[in-house]
């Protein structure tokens, strides 16, 4: 069975039965999120906040929501964290193989079609809401992909729980043919709008600028707030608070040999 690939549905019937009897299944990490993208004169800017939540608590204060698809294509993900990570990873791997086979640059439209086919096949159960952006030989492209597999091609778009807050900024600030700096400012402002107004979004602003020349991934482009208060009487443990029961000293050099040489090539 395993070598066929795809999801395993073996225990669905059992789980359905147990849930009817009152069992509660495990919860998932949802990224209550603000993600956004804008097309400007010669490229695309993608943006995301960096908070991931589990219920009402923050699970990760600085997570990455802009995923790699191809050297010229990136994708922001909102929804269930596992779904966005895996669905973008699967498409990235398919495109990698496709590039080996064809020797040409991946097109944004191809990745969009792969994403929507996969999501439509699973009828919304793979809950990934995506903002896909990239530049290929046809120029800059920006798409939203909904969990059920429908897509939109737009000059500016937002997704996630903070999508309305970010969209308000776009609706009031977007214009055609912006410069790179204008576009970056607008997207950062839209993400900030999500961070400060939507409780599901928070922490920092990530940006990803894609042009014909290449990708400028600005991880933590804006660090918005530090800790607002330092303890005046922090809990300090004096040296020796923990008794040393046993002590052993190893000489590492006897177990490990260090060889000089070139590091193995990682990137193609």
């Amino acid at each position, binding site marked *: 069975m395993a070598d066929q690939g795809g999801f395993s549905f073996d225990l669905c019937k059992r789980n359905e039965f147990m849930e009817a009897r009152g069992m509660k299944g495990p919860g998932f990490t949802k990224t209550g999120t603000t993600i956004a993208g804008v097309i400007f004169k010669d490229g695309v800017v993608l943006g995301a906040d960096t908070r991931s939540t589990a219920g*009402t*608590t923050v699970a990760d204060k600085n997570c990455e929501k802009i995923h790699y698809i191809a050297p010229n294509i990136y994708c922001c993900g909102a929804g269930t964290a596992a779904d966005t990570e895996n669905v973008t990873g699967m498409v990235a791997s398919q495109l990698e193989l496709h590039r080996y086979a064809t020797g040409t640059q991946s097109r944004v439209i191809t990745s969009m079609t792969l994403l929507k086919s996969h999501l439509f096949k699973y009828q919304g159960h793979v809950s990934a809401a995506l903002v896909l952006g990239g530049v290929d030989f046809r120029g800059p492209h920006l798409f939203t992909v909904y969990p059920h597999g429908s897509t939109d091609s737009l000059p500016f778009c937002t997704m996630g729980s903070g999508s309305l807050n970010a969209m308000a900024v776009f609706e009031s600030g977007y214009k055609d043919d912006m410069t790179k700096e204008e576009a970056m400012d607008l997207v950062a402002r839209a993400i900030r709008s999500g*961070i*400060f107004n*939507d409780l599901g979004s*928070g922490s920092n602003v990530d940006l990803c600028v894609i042009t014909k020349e290449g990708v400028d991934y600005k991880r933590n482009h804006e660090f918005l*707030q530090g800790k607002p208060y330092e303890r005046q*009487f922090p*809990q300090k443990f004096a040296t020796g608070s923990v008794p040393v029961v046993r002590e052993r000293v190893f000489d590492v050099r006897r177990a490990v040999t260090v060889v000089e040489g070139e590091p193995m090539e990682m990137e193609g």
Partner: protein
Amino acid sequence: MAASLPMRATVPAAGSGVKQHASWSPYDDNGGTVVAVAGDDYCVVAASTRMSTGYSILTRNKSKILTFNPKCLIASAGMQADMETLHKVLHSRHVTYQFNHRRPMGCQAMAQLLSNTLYHKRFFPYYTFNLCAGLDEQGRGAVYTYDAIGSYERVGYGCQGSGKELIQPVLDNQLKAASPLVLPAQQWLSSLPLEQAVDLVKGAFVSAGERDIYTGDDVEILILTKDGIRTDKLELKRD
């Protein structure tokens, strides 16, 4: 959040059975955290000022504390409309009490009154989680903690609201909760000096603000001593 609320009234739409329709619940959770720490001669009370519903912030500046007199106040988290009503009722009762008795109500009396007021609505409860705090007859700090329907007990420190799972264990650890089962009975008052207690409360709120999405914006801090009430403010993150 909504799943844990006790009541939900739905009105089926005419015709089709599965049609989307407006529904409403008489309850909402507006979030927020309140903390109180009692000392030998002081009481520190703090409450976050963010008021939210669902994933949106309604206002960044809503007080959750009602001060009756320099020795008694209550702080409430939960549903704002119920909180406002409860505060109005208690305020009015406190005014009447002063007319009748020619003195402000003591903390112990207010604690019992709050319990009775909450239990009065046992079958349609106020969705509020309260702390009654102040100074007792001997001038020692007093904190009373409640559930939504009026069960209460006097404690050395307390925490209620959306951040309580994060803050309560820290207070337990730092203020050395004496188990009520330990014999002979242990003293429950916080042994910390005032500045350290305030520092602890501030530190607890900063940490809760990092991890609880409903705790943020500002914290108003009231410090009750025999000299009166001093207020302090702490800014938290606004995301």
